């Protein structure tokens, strides 16, 4: 009998889909503090905020619903705040054996949130800001 593998992290609702963020990438979940807008910043960059004593760029997720909870992640050593995801649960979730990085939450599959793509979008926005600025 094979034991189901568990994965620790955060399940969020993004639009109508469920997504999973591994615990290694998530720093904290916070009630959204005030966001300071950055002149020339483009979507999805909303601005910057201070969370846990460091400055965090805040990115708006597409199809955002909940704008009260901020999920602070760290990707490639850089902090990144995700706004608009509805945090459904934190803890250990059964890993879906058929797909890499996918977990099961209340009978539904939650695929891994593509933080790399989000980070790349943020970087593009940042470069655009620097070029135009």
């Amino acid at each position: 009998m094979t034991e189901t593998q568990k994965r620790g992290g955060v399940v969020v609702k993004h639009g109508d889909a469920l997504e999973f963020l591994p615990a290694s990438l998530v720093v904290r979940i916070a009630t959204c503090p005030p966001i300071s807008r950055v002149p020339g910043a483009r979507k999805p960059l909303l601005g910057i905020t201070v969370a846990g004593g460091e400055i965090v760029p805040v990115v708006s997720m597409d199809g955002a619903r909940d704008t009260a909870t901020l999920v602070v992640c760290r990707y490639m050593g850089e902090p990144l705040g995700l706004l608009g995801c509805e945090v459904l649960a934190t803890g250990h979730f059964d890993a879906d054996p058929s797909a890499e990085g996918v977990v099961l939450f209340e009978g539904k599959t939650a695929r891994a949130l593509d933080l790399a793509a989000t980070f790349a979008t943020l970087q593009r926005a940042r470069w655009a800001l620097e070029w135009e600025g």
Partner: protein
Amino acid sequence: MAEKNRFFRLWRRGTSGSKGAARSITEEGALWASHARASEEATKAAEAAERAASSTAKQRATLDAGTDEARAVSTRSEELQRQVARLADAFERLNVIALNAGLEGARLGEVGGKALSLVSSEVRSHADRGVETAREVGRTIAESTRELATLTSRFDEARGHGADITQHASLAAASAAESSRALADLGERLRTATGSDPETAQAIAQATEHARALVVALGALSGRVPRALLASALRPMLEPLVRSLIEDEGEDEPTKES
């Protein structure tokens, strides 16, 4: 003496053979009776208007107190709503803390973080219920505040109606007072026109009734009792009266001519 003469003069008008004169004195009596009734009703109307104004003033005071209380409750409801909002916010923060505890549990690994994850999950479920309940209470309070606002506006409306009633009561009181004055004036004019007053008119009406009754009684005795016996029995009482009437008629003649 003059008063007595006036009475007899008026009474004679009532008892004289002329049907017109008799009707006239009866009409005068009825006129005075109507005047008295009208005066009484005008007084009652004035008193009723005064009572209505007084009751409306009391009602207005009650409504004012009710409105003040409703406003105070409304203010307290708003404060309560703010407190409930703070409560909901505290539960939401507790929820976030529980999520972070779950995240820490996830970081500790499946075995090490299990207890933390379980506590986190339990706290979250309670915090969620707390948020939901606080929001429900907030909605109920908001609804009650709206109903209170409606109640206050109804009170204001009732106060407006009360003010209208007070105004109408004042008008009614003024009209009743004016009616009383007009009736007093009418009474004076009636007194001048007829030469009588309510008391005299009533006394004459009664005397006329008695005189008629006497005539009827005498008619019934006619032929059954000797005339001489009847005359001797009635003379002591009727002679002064007849003399008085004859004297009065004699005095009355020049007045008639003038």
